[in-house]
């Protein structure tokens, strides 16, 4: 995704990443893990996802084979290969129907909503299918809907994942049941001595209802079951987390827009930005010409016209002082118009940029009202478009710093690393730069995004401000 990342935060405080976790803290975390809200939401996600695992090609196939077998053979013998072939065709047709109508997409979007609500996983919806000109027989997106087919693939993968999710749920339930055994024993098993009772099966992660595991027949034995339950409850959140993250990975990969589609969306967006940007640029240019040089030249022509009229057609000039004043005004106007045109031309393309970014940045730094410390190391020269974007970013950021930051010094660094140009402008000012507040920053971010670059702003209130622009060397 080529869009700008704007994080108005500062770097993490030094040492936070290297802070050692004490064994005590790790143990505490492990103990409270089952009672965290996150564990609860993940458990809920596992439960809520179970019905979806049933809408699965394999499950459908088994169901249909059984139905045919019951209807055709009366449930005797084994299903014949013909039954299976018919069932296979039926499942295929069902899947095509599922994808062609919007059903598959609906299924996908339901599960995206679940993931968003319970796991906080935000996955964009795949783009809707565009109607092609010309008639179309399908009521939905049609059998060639890639997004629909990816939902089917997800459903296929959801079966094993769903089974593991079920297993995770059983760890929670089994753990709780085991934990309650001492209480249950006290409540229901206080029979007189000598009464023989069948032993209680203990749930373990390794077998169901006592098969291959142990049973308890005495009250002290229930504490062993409770200990097993506690161990299962401690393990349950981690198993749940592991399987939900696998599911989340699948959802991200299969229920979102495909990577290619995402790229196309990004490119469409950045193309729209580029078009808007160049249209806005031309409009600004026209406006500057209209309100600047053009009107100055018209005024200058008017002053000269009035002077010419006052000079008359020869002989004495009755009002020489007025003529002089008008010509002076015209002269001033000419100088102003020249200055205006020069700054306009420089705004379109600074000539110094032809010598490379280093020279251009040096000339920017020299013009700055706040002292600038400049450090440039660009071994490979970027393409002109990249140099221009980098230059205008630096110019805009310098202007912003001069206007708002109250900084005493600014540091500009430009460095080329392999195929990336890194430009950073840092000041020691008051910070609080916010692209949302209509400054030129959002415009810069747009310009940078057009070439798949990134603009990162770290500007906490109170300062300092550091803006980093990452650009590809070629565009």
């Amino acid at each position, binding site marked *: 995704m080529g869009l700008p990342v704007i994080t108005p935060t500062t770097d993490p405080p030094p040492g936070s990443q290297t802070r050692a976790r004490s064994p005590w803290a790790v143990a505490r975390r492990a103990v409270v893990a089952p009672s965290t809200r996150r564990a609860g939401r993940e458990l809920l996600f596992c439960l809520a996802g179970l019905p979806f695992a049933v809408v699965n090609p394999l499950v459908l196939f088994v169901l249909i084979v059984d139905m045919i077998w019951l209807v055709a053979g009366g449930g005797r013998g084994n299903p014949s290969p013909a039954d299976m072939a018919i069932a296979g065709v039926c499942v295929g047709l069902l899947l095509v129907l599922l994808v062609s109508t919007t059903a598959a997409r609906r299924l996908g979007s339901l599960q995206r909503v679940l993931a968003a609500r319970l796991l906080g996983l935000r996955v964009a919806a795949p783009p809707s299918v565009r109607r092609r000109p010309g008639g179309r027989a399908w009521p939905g997106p049609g059998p060639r809907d890639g997004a629909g087919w990816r939902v089917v693939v997800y459903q296929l993968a959801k079966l094993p994942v769903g089974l593991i999710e079920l297993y995770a749920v059983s760890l929670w339930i089994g753990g709780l049941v085991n934990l309650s055994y001492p209480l249950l024993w006290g409540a229901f098993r206080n029979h007189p001595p000598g009464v023989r009772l069948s032993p209680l099966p203990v749930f373990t992660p390794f077998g169901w209802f006592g098969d291959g595991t142990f049973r308890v027949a005495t009250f002290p034995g229930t504490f062993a079951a409770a200990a097993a339950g506690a161990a299962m409850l401690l393990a349950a959140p981690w198993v749940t987390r592991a399987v939900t993250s696998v599911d989340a990975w699948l959802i991200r990969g299969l229920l979102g827009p495909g990577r290619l589609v995402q790229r196309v969306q990004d490119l469409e967006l950045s193309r729209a930005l580029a078009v808007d940007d160049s249209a806005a640029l031309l409009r600004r240019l026209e406006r500057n010409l209209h309100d600047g040089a053009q009107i100055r*030249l*018209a005024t200058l022509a008017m002053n000269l016209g009035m002077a010419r009229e006052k000079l008359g057609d020869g002989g004495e000039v009755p009002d020489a002082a007025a003529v002089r004043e008008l010509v002076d005004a015209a002269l001033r106007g000419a100088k102003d118009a020249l200055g205006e045109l020069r700054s306009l031309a420089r705004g379109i393309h600074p000539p110094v940029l032809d010598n490379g970014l280093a020279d251009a940045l040096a000339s920017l730094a020299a013009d700055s009202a706040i002292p600038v410390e400049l450090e440039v190391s660009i071994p490979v020269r970027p393409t002109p478009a990249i140099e221009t974007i980098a230059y205008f970013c630096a110019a805009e950021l310098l202007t912003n710093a001069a206007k708002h930051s109250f900084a005493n010094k600014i540091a500009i660094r430009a460095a080329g690393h392999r195929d990336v140009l890194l430009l950073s402008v840092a000041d020691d000012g008051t910070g609080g730069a916010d692209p949302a507040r209509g400054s030129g920053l959002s415009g810069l971010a747009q310009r940078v995004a057009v070439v798949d670059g990134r603009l990162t702003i770290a500007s906490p209130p109170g300062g300092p401000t550091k803006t980093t622009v990452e650009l590809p060397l070629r565009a």
Partner: protein
Amino acid sequence: MNARVVIAEDAALFRAGLTRLIEDHGHRVCAAVGDGGALLAAVAKHQPDVVVADIRMPPTHTDEGLRAALEIRSQHPRTAVLVLSQYIETRYTSRLLEGNAAGAGYLLKERVADVAEFVDALERVATGGTALDPEVVGQLLRVSRRADGVAALTARERHVLALMAEGRSNAGIASALVVTGGTVEKHVASIFDKLGLPQDEADNRRVLAVLRYLSS
């Protein structure tokens, strides 16, 4: 004559120069304002003979001046309007002159450099005449779909046609071409004859007829 003028122009230097120029020629500038809203207010207050208005003014910087001019023409029919622009834009002129060319004008800003011509155009508009920029007329002639009709005219007649379209009277055309009034009348009659237009005495109706012919 001594006209009462209201100026609307957002560039302060140009506004000041225009005020001086107009006052130097014996007219009175009642108000000089910088946007469309202020122009309408000033016109309502001073009821001037003529308004000189820039087309592009704040806040929208599009065609504020033109819209104000159209409103003035419908609300204050006795106030003439001379619109100044930096563009040759025949659609603006056709909107301005729609149905009635009396007391209306459209000039490029650079015309002010030729002070006498500009003041002449201003006075012509102020007294109910028409002033259309030569460049705009030239554009109309170039893009006119009636090219065959125009091609049937002699070079001299084409020149006279252009001057008519600018809104000049026969006397004005005669002095511009340095010929007698009679010669101009003969040219005009020939032009109307060749283009199949009805003869009309009033200059502003004549302008409309010519413009309508060129843009139909």
